């Protein structure tokens, strides 16, 4: 039978204990692709992100004000369940029976304390996929170390190589970059395990360490050390071969500074760039004649080029260079990107229609399938919004039981 799916992960259910950034964004990928992701929180210990990035005047006003949370939890369902109570643990076990995946990114040992180690979970649901996300992994001498994106960046060598040529190291921004990598590696890991489960019926345990994903992201630098003993250094916007290859000032056409990033890949593109500039005298300088020359003299080259770029707005210049066959883009601020017509035309931003956040746009996920719906962009859930659905419909508790368990602070 060829049933028509509206989204690819329809029918898959996830019990999601993840908090903060990397964990929630990993399960957000599954949620937007159609899985039913049930997020478990306790009123006394909500996901911290629920409070982060509140609209003006709303800071500190309850668990539903965080735009950070909203942007990391599209389409999920939210329940409140006090996991420190025996009844709470019993209900969690009943939910696990209905799930394909359990995901968590606590410091080690939390689920074990609730009687939900992987071994215990397998007794309840033999084919369960258990995703454990952490900074350093769930085994080894560093397994207890607290980790955040910026800490792992420093640990792995990314901060060391992030900066201006010859300058100091810098924290990578503006996003928690390594959290992003960890999240999507996590989504890939869970979907790989789901595929295996669909083929064989077997679940498994996933131990995803940020440092191991990051050692892959830094594969080029890792191999550089292994092959040559080179530890790398900050090179700014530069490339190992191309020049010009950088970010240059533009004319301010609005409220904010404007910059353009551009890269010249070969001689043909260099000539196209020269033509675009009207072949000024400095381009005929012997130092800039060929690729090695331009690379050797790129500091000087960048100075000349900046004098030219600063006469134009970033959009105007991007269009002109791209038409000439040169890779270029405005270096967007978050504000500029939010107002950009290209990315908006593609529907990247979505309106959450959220009772607190209103219809302010949030980033969607970079998922575009030809033959599925655009994604599960249901409003990011209010705390406990789906208690009735999950405990009533899925677990079959009566309204009276739900009321009683709420009063007894189990569903809380």
């Amino acid at each position, binding site marked *: 039978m*060829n*049933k028509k*799916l509206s989204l*690819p992960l329809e029918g898959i259910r996830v019990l999601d204990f993840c908090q903060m950034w990397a964990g929630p964004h990993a399960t957000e990928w599954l949620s937007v692709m*159609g899985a039913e992701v049930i997020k478990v929180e306790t009123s006394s210990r909500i996901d911290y992100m629920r409070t982060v*990035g*509140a609209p*003006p005047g709303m800071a500190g006003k309850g668990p539903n004000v965080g735009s950070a949370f*909203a942007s990391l939890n599209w389409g999920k369902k939210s329940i409140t369940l006090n996991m420190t109570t025996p009844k709470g643990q019993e209900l969690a076990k009943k939910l696990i029976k209905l799930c394909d995946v359990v995901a968590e990114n606590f410091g080690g040992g939390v689920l074990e304390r609730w009687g939900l180690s992987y071994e215990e979970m397998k007794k309840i649901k033999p084919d369960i996929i258990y995703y454990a996300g952490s900074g*350093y992994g769930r085994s*080894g*001498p560093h397994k207890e170390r*607290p*980790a*955040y994106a*910026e800490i792992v960046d*420093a*640990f792995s*060598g990314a901060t*060391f190589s992030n900066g201006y040529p010859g300058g100091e190291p810098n*924290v*990578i*921004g*503006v*996003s928690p970059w390594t959290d992003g990598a960890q999240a*999507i590696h996590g*989504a890939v890991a869970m979907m790989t395990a789901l*595929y295996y489960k669909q083929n*064989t019926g077997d679940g*498994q345990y*996933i131990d995803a360490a940020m*440092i*191991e*994903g990051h050692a*892959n*992201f830094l*594969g080029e630098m890792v*191999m550089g*050390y*292994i092959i*040559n003993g*080179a*530890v*790398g250094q900050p090179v700014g*916007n530069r490339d190992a071969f191309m020049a010009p290859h950088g970010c240059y*000032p533009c004319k301010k056409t609005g409220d904010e*500074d404007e*910059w353009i*990033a551009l*890269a010249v890949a070969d001689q043909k593109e260099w000539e196209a760039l020269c033509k675009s500039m009207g072949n000024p005298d400095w381009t005929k300088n012997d130092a800039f004649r060929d690729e090695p020359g331009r690379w050797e003299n790129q500091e000087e080259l960048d100075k000349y080029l900046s004098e030219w770029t600063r006469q134009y707005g970033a959009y105007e210049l991007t269009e002109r260079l*791209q038409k000439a066959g040169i*890779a270029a883009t405005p*270096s967007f*601020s978050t504000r500029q990107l939010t107002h950009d017509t290209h990315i908006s035309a593609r529907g990247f*931003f979505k309106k959450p229609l959220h009772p607190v956040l209103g219809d302010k746009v949030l*980033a969607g996920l970079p*998922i*575009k*399938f030809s*033959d599925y719906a655009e994604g599960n962009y249901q409003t990011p859930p209010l705390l406990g919004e789906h208690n009735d659905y999950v405990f009533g419909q899925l677990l079959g508790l009566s309204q009276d039981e739900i009321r009683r368990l709420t009063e007894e602070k189990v569903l809380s």
Partner: protein
Amino acid sequence: MTPQALSNVKVIEFSDFISGPYCGKLLSNMGAQVIKVEKPGLGDKARSYGPFPQHIPHPEKSGLFLFLNTNKSGITLDVASADGLKIFQELIKWADILIEDHSVKEIERLGLTYAALKKINPSLIMTSITPFGQTGPFKDYKGNDLIAAHAGTEGFGNPDEGVKDPASMPPLKVPNHAADFMCGLTAAACTLGALLGRKNGGQGQHIDLSKQEAVASITRQQLAYYSVMEETPSREWGRKKFGGFLYPCRDGYVVIWIGPHYHLVVKMMGDPDWSKEEMFANPLMRNNYIVELNQLITAWTLEHTAVEINNLALEYGVPCSLVRSVKDLIADEQLAYRNFWQEIDHPVAGKLKYPGAPFKLSTTPGIINRPAPLLGEHNDIVYGEILKYSQEQLTKMKQAGII
């Protein structure tokens, strides 16, 4: 034999450098059969990029290429020739997945649009990676790692602390082709979603992966801040209010994450009198006075070595790390304990240590059991055994420069 999660999945990788190949690597290291299609002659751009031993270029010794193409088979094919196109179409019939990173116009020119390939293989999943996506006013624009970082706001936002002179210090791309890697990773997540959907009763699928969107998706929290808090971003020094901060020490740098750990941080510093000041009484106050707070912490970190601070942090449970180079990462005891690194022997590059799987799956661990292919190494196997061409036909194709 150790089972592999994707062992029955067949992939054609028709893409260059980092994004497409990292997507292919995530599949090949989980057992998928990946055939990498390279252009005859030079092959993949990563072959000429390095790093090379003693910095001497050699197409079989590029560290980047060796790393990105483990477990793959490699063939050469001139897809632009009429015979090459025919062979490529036969490969498409064989495949579950095509990963490609050509411009929209180039794919049209080659006759390899999704509409055309779907006719040959209706259940094909085609993952197209382009700088700005398949639609919209910028769809034909060129790009690379630098362009993706800046187009997706990660350039404008880097460094995180802001800069001391915003006029002379331009927005900065993330280091080490990190944007290209992020795009490849994102493409793999989309591809696996489509694969699961197909297994689930869904159809073949075209995936339109925009590198700009893949990067912008990572800055979602800051995009939300602009949208909801009406916070106008700036590049001024000191803009960062929370998260991990970089502190100079007597002999280097450490990063410390204060956040909810303020009391541990000040305890580690010996509970100085200033730490009890009203201005640092709660998280909101500390955010307002973060510049002052960091100045006070810096005065302390400057009196200590990075290792001293890191040891104290470990003792007090403060999230902290030395700012280390990749050398220390490779020597780290944690990764050794977890058997992360894998030694792989390559016929030309020799025995080298490689990063292992980015996550550990207990039943189907990612295992690298083959080095990256030599240029055209698997022509005979792929064309002979899979597509059933005769030796005579193969010789002719070689002479014509098609393979």
